[in-house]
């Protein structure tokens, strides 16, 4: 039985903002199915009552004084942008796009 089908992969690709060619979608479906098949190994282990580990060190939310820190100047921050206007990142029109989904 396959664990993941082409439709699942295409749904996940949309979530991840990836567009797959037919060939890629077929390959990814086969690869992910094999990998998920391997991962089923974990079902052997009883994890009843085991706390999950998200992070190995105890993390507290660090606080700092509410004063401005030295950050990248806006013109430096946009220097790597493929398109910018002044100190803003330029993108194609957004509204039509949102209507789509």
């Amino acid at each position, binding site marked *: 039985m396959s664990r993941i089908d082409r439709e699942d992969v295409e749904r996940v690709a949309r979530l991840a*903002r990836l567009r797959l060619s037919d060939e890629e979608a077929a390959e*990814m479906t086969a690869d992910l199915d*094999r990998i998920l098949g391997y991962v089923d190994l*974990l079902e052997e282990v009883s994890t009843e009552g*085991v706390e*999950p580990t998200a992070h190995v*060190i105890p993390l507290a939310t660090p606080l700092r004084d509410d004063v401005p820190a030295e950050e990248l100047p806006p013109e430096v921050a946009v220097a790597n*942008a*493929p398109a910018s206007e002044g100190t803003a990142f330029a*993108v194609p029109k957004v509204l039509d796009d949102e209507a789509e989904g």
Partner: protein
Amino acid sequence: MPSPLGEVARLREALTSGETTSSRLVDAALAAAEAVGEDLSVFTHLRHEAAREAAAAADARLSAGRARSVLDGLPIALKDNIVQAGEPAGCASRILEGYVSPFDATAVARLLEAGAIPIGRTNMDEFAMGSSTENSVHGPTRNPWDRDRSPGGSSGGSAAAVAADIVPLALGSDTGGSIRQPASLCGVVGMKPTYGRVSRWGLVAFASSLDQIGPFAHTAADCAVLLDAMSGHDAHDSTSLPEPPLQTAAGLNGDLSGRVIGLPREYYEAEGADASSLECVHAAVAALEGAGAKTVPVSLPHTRYAIAAYYLIANAEASSNLARFDGVRYGHRAAGASGLTDLYERSRSEGFGAEVKRRILLGTYVLSAGYYDAYYRRAQKLRTLLRRDFEAAFESCDVLVTPTTPEPAFRLGERADDPLTMYLSDVYTVSANLAGLPGVSIPCGLAGGGLAAGLPVGLQVLGPPLADAAVLEVADAYQRLTDHHQARPGGSR
């Protein structure tokens, strides 16, 4: 007294005595990077002019008797996912083509402060996703020991740069073995520090709860010098440990008496492991025992689940971290997009390679509604069980000694079409990342027989969290007893 081993001590002496200069060292490194490095595809970028200027400045300090540290004037190579201001940081990905970092990674800033001179950026698997340095937009790096074989990965360029004696020192990053595995396959020393020891600020994120920057060199003593210089809390990384910089180099004394070494049976019984590699590891254990260490058998019963847990957790985190590459703020942008979603999808689809897409898809899938508990949460619980395994084992020993990999360097292309087999080659390294442990791989001989004859074999030393000094002490002690770290491709020097 610090360890007498290593290039840092030797080069320091040569610089102090006037036998050489930083300019000569940097010129030689750049020349080697162009000659050997190009043949093996070790570097993705060299900074000729900036490195030469830095060397001239270092020489001025040295002749005035004002060396900043033992690293002042020494050339170093940086993996292409650790940023330096004004330099490209491409992560071997098309999506970061042309990106120039506006800031220094904290680890890099601290090394620059110490006077080290980055000569260039090393090849890697795209976004550190891989174990062979084949998933690179620049093409694969070749192993200096056999150019038809992989140097391992993902930090294969940094490992090869040290193995081929282009630079004495290099930095890599280790998420599931990406420093230790290539160190093993290239016959050099590579260390993954305790999680949080070295700030991740300026390390392009792959899996944030697993990633650590660490050093490559020919000796544990040199790795200790680099680790000491890079470690210590950094306000820019809230997961960096609230600890002062380490001082491990000064504590290396070669003493193994009273040291208890655990031998986890699961790491010695893997199916398909190379027998002659295992012989090297057993000989290394005997050498450690001969020098006064005591060995005890231990068990890490959940080892067989580590790879599965690792790939679920690492890729879940990756799918989230790599969302930032969207063609808007930096990197590749697809031409002629009709709207914002179209721009995201086309830029990402053009910019990422196949393995990165595979992992983003897997990570997104296991975090998606309906699968989160079955995959991601279960993997996190396994992570707890793996941590408990180590806690129990370290009740009866100070460090663990294991093979670093099941076999020596594999052939380029051999596993490229088989992601799962590639993943399984990390079986001995991923657990240290899941548990946050420090680990180092050191050369322990050359494989004896069969197709892998003459290829380097790595010995892994793992310690409990925070025991970075202990793993380096054991590794250094072993290197004082043996001369495997002096073996070079094409014969000993």
